[in-house]
């Protein structure tokens, strides 16, 4: 970019093409042409990775000028929908396009926002979970103004994320995602966590710094991932057996050691439910008068409420004759006067059978390795030590266990997340420096401050919002098609909940309606943006069969793709560098965003108005226009004033920037007010920065204390305990949910109800997937390989598969554009490097080229990312196989949280 020529203008923007952002960059514009990007060095001192941006951000220029873009609104002229039906796109003006959409929306408002089955007639799906909000402009305010909208028609949520970690992590320690406190850790055991591919620049930088200073990282995963490459040790574990190894580690700690010597006993006594007495029915033994859980006071030799200040030595083991009440499902009370044991004693008994030798046979990991890793874990935990951070003293427990995709979702996800978190609790490595930390909350409030979300709840634990399961409170009638309020108590009912429920159920139930359930219906209008469910869901053929039936689909479209092929209206997407939005940045956030600052960053058009390569409109302007045309402008303005979508109210303490009812502001006018409100709000009213300031400077920050990374201080200050190790509340939820479903005659969710265990144990998780063969009249032995996926930094979440330059550079990372096979296994199958291979599952086939490696188990094949495109320009020519083409969408593969996992038993052959 150096050299003579016209002066280069540098325009600050953010990139949020992955959930590990946003990152800050500058776009170089020369003579009205965007010619490149560079890290925003202005924020190098503020940004945790010195202001760098990753490979995807460098693709943004190509994304902007891609000639395959949809450049003008288009309407479908072929009423028949199908893969082999040309949509017959005809260009129309924006005015005409919005007329078409508006007439559909008005029709809904005339008929009623909810259909006869009780489902919203308007549905909207946005892709990649955490990314879309950074590109939605004020569209969320439009949806808020509209009323009921079904945002639960999935595009892969649940099966492509850390689903169990999201729900249980937030339940246990405000951890929508869990990260190791890598800078202060000595040992990280990673079960498939691939943060060097998916952790963004902040994740990569933290890991690199830690490796250089000597952090020991052990990677347990079936193939040697990008992150595994940086590990000191690779343990090639059999797929979906992680829970066995984690349970065996618990066994080593609790059974093969004297737990009094190796565990953080004060932490267990004071900050967990370990001393709570468990009654014969599995619920806590409670004080009859107050209902508080009882603990056994070793000094006074009698049961006392858990919060009795005079109790200095609560028992963690033994069996104690105690009287109290047991309160079970639906409030049933039972008087108890018999021997009861603390939850911790139940835990020790629970893990007693899980020896390393037992786990070794299941996981194909030597017992000695499991034993050694558990001992290393205890050694590095340094129980009893402290660390000073910014003048405050914290416990220092420099050990962490992190979990990756397919470990943290689907069957076994609960067991893995539980065992990992209990291992942290045993040594006090939970929410303290060096241990495991939550990053953000998505169900609890306030969403922007996880420490403030720590509020006292029942039984000495944090308050946690859940979907009720009581007789009079259960939402028995699904209000959206994935029924998260009905089926998944832990999913709660926050704006994020639709994406955290069983988001694939709508696709499943549309084809196979379950018994005793409202007849599934299609939405009258489905709006999609930055999503391609026909590629990113499992069972892509099923998705396409359903897409043919959708009556009206309006797609904000970057290029033609496999989902918008079935659309009725294409609206050209204003890409990352063509629209305006202010977004929160900094603090702590997934995946490993740990800043010492927090603030706001601007994304702005980099080209002069009207000079871009496509006839796009800012999504904020589209939202405003739709609100006006539909007749809900006042409601829309009110939503904006409340901060809907922007996350900052326009009226706050010491400032009033609210928009007047009836006004029809431009995107610039809206975001100018948001800029001013955001800076006012963040600075306590001291500073106000407007849009023009952000256009020049890009971002505004205030300090964020390192102490806010750790929940420890908030928990200790409020005298709260972590709801570990015993899961009484989970047990009760399951009992009540089961009762509610059975009262309605619903038995098809019974297998899922089995997950609600107070102390989860091993089940033969791999067999659940292997059973898909038997269910289809095939023998499991016909499918001796496991097909897995792995993330690619070049492609994850980027909506960039149509960019040749990404493929050009991604080719250097092995695994792209083929099927990774173990070299020895391939030799036995007479498959050579580059040979065509066929992957067959019990439900489908996919084909690709063999890539032979040593760093993959002989019984595993790996296909990176999600490809299999047939409509997306360029990507359709890559000839890539896809796991999604051979994975079946099946209730039997859906766990209690509504999640699945990318795991398919397959046969592999040359051809």
């Amino acid at each position: 970019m150096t050299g003579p020529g016209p002066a280069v203008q540098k325009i600050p923007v953010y990139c949020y093409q992955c959930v590990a952002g946003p990152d800050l960059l500058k776009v170089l514009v020369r003579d009205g042409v965007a010619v490149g990007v560079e890290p925003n060095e202005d924020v190098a001192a503020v940004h945790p990775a010195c202001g760098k941006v990753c490979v995807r951000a460098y693709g943004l220029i190509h994304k902007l000028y891609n000639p395959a873009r949809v450049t003008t609104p288009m309407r479908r002229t072929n009423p028949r929908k199908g893969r082999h039906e040309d949509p017959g796109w005809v260009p129309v003006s924006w005015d005409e396009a919005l007329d078409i959409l508006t007439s559909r929306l008005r029709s809904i408002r005339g008929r009623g926002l909810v259909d006869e089955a009780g489902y919203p007639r308007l549905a909207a799906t946005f892709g990649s979970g955490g990314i879309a909000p950074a590109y939605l402009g004020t569209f969320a305010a439009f949806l808020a103004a509209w009323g009921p909208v079904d945002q639960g028609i999935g595009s892969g949520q649940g099966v492509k994320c850390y689903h169990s970690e999201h729900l249980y992590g937030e339940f246990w320690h405000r951890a929508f995602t869990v990260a190791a406190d890598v800078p202060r850790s000595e040992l990280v055991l990673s079960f498939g966590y691939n943060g060097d591919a998916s952790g963004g620049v902040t994740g990569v930088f933290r890991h690199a710094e830690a490796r250089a200073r000597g952090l020991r990282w052990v990677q347990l995963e079936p193939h040697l991932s990008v992150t595994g490459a940086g590990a000191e040790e690779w343990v090639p574990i059999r797929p979906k057996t992680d829970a066995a190894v984690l349970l065996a580690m618990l066994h080593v700690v609790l059974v093969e050691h004297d737990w009094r010597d190796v565990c953080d006993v004060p932490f267990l006594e004071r900050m967990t439910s370990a001393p709570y007495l468990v009654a014969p029915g599995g619920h806590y033994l409670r004080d009859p008068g107050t209902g508080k859980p009882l603990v056994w006071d070793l000094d006074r030799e009698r049961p006392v409420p858990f919060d009795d200040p005079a109790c200095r030595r609560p028992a963690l083991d033994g069996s104690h004759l105690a009287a109290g009440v047991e309160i079970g499902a639906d409030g049933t009370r039972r008087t108890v006067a018999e021997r009861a044991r603390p939850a911790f004693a139940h835990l020790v008994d629970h893990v007693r059978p899980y020896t390393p030798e037992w786990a070794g046979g299941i996981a194909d990991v030597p017992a000695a390795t499991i034993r050694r890793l558990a001992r290393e874990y205890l050694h590095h935990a340094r129980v009893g030590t402290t660390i000073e951070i910014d003048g405050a003293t914290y416990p220092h427990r420099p050990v962490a266990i992190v979990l990756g995709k397919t470990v943290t979702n689907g069957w076994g996800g609960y067991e893995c997340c539980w065992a990992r978190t209990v291992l942290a609790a045993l040594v006090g490595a939970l929410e303290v420096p060096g241990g495991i930390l939550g990053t953000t909350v998505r169900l609890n409030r306030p969403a922007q401050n996880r420490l403030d979300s720590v509020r006292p709840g029942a039984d000495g634990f944090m308050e946690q919002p859940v979907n009720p399961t009581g007789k009079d409170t259960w939402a028995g009638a699904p209000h959206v098609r994935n029924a998260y309020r009905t089926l998944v108590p832990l999913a709660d009912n926050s704006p994020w909940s639709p994406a955290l429920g069983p988001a694939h159920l709508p696709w499943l139930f549309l084809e196979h309606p379950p018994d005793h359930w409202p007849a599934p219906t299609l939405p009258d209008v489905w709006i999609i943006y930055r999503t391609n469910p026909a590629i990113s869901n499992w069972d892509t053929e099923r998705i396409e069969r359903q897409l043919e039936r959708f009556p009206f689909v309006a797609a904000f479209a970057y290029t033609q793709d496999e989902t918008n092929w079935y659309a009725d209206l294409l609206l050209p997407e204003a890409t990352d560098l063509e629209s305006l939005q202010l977004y929160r940045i900094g603090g702590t956030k997934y995946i490993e965003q740990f800043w010492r600052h927090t603030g706001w960053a601007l994304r702005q058009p980099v080209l002069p108005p009207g000079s871009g390569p496509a006839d796009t409109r800012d999504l904020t302007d589209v939202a405003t226009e739709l609100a006006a045309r539909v007749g809900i402008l006042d409601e829309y303005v009110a939503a904006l004033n409340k901060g809907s979508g922007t996350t900052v109210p326009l009226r706050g303490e010491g400032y009033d920037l609210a928009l007047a009812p009836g006004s029809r502001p431009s995107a610039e006018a809206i975001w100018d007010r948001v800029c001013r409100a955001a800076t006012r709000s963040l600075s306590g009213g001291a500073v106000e920065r407007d849009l023009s300031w952000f256009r020049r400077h890009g971002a505004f920050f205030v300090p964020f204390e390192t102490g806010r990374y750790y929940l420890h201080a908030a928990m200790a200050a409020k005298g709260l305990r972590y709801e570990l190790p015993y899961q009484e509340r989970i047990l009760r939820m399951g009992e009540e949910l089961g009762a509610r479903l059975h009262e309605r005659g619903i038995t098809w969710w019974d297998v899922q109800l089995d997950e609600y265990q107070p102390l989860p144990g091993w089940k033969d998780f791999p067999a659940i997937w292997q059973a898909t063969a038997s269910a289809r009249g095939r023998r499991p032995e016909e499918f001796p390989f496991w097909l897995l996926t792995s993330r690619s930094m070049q492609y994850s979440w980027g909506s960039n598969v149509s960019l040749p330059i990404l493929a050009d550079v991604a080719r250097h990372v092995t695994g792209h554009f083929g099927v990774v096979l173990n070299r020895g296994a391939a030799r036995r199958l007479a498959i050579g490097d580059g040979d065509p291979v066929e992957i067959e599952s019990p439900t489908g086939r996919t084909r690709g080229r063999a890539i032979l490696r040593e760093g993959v188990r002989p019984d595993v094949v790996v296909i990176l990312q999600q490809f299999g495109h047939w409509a997306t320009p360029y990507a359709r020519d890559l000839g890539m196989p896809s796991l999604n083409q051979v994975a079946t969408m099946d209730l039997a593969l859906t766990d209690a949280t509504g999640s699945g996992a990318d795991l398919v038993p397959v046969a592999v052959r040359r051809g």
Partner: protein
Amino acid sequence: MRWGMVIDLRRCVGCQTCTIACKQEHGLPAGTFWRYVADCEAGEYPDVRRVFLPMQCMHCAEPPCVPVCPTGASRQREDGIVWVAYDACVGCGYCAMACPYRARHLVREADSYFAAPTPPERASAHPERRGVMTKCTFCKERIDQGRARGLRPGVDPEATPICAVACIAGAIVFGDLDDPASPAASLVAQGDAAPLLPECGTAPSVYYRTR
């Protein structure tokens, strides 16, 4: 003065950010890489190591590509940077044959990534590179223009090779190997870094750190 680079393999994650930043900086056509990160394996299952190895011109002190050039187009500057005078190059490929690092690339056509060049591709086109050998220049224009402005290569981003500026893992340290005070020279002096294929006797200016 001898410009050099130390690349910390413990930090590199093979993300190819340096690869794409280099392509952008130099307007390289599709399929041409002046640098990239190789994805290597050593050992056999289950005792396997996966290593990411950034590859580029090593700017050797004894560059075998220079003496073999029949036209004198392949040159070495006083500061050690090896470069190609495009107007003197005939694209014979002798230098590519001589280079043990396979770091020289003949650009036959200025291939666009799309059917026709996009506006930024046109804006960053280099017609002088067509039909000649090309290679990593250590971003000599950035160094020269930066130094002319009083900036310090290896310290100030605008005077530093773009791969080092872009690297998200802090894996690339650039500096004057003849200046004992520079971090790059210090790492080499401590014996923590070694060149690739030292047996070739080319005395590379790019070192790799593995411990």
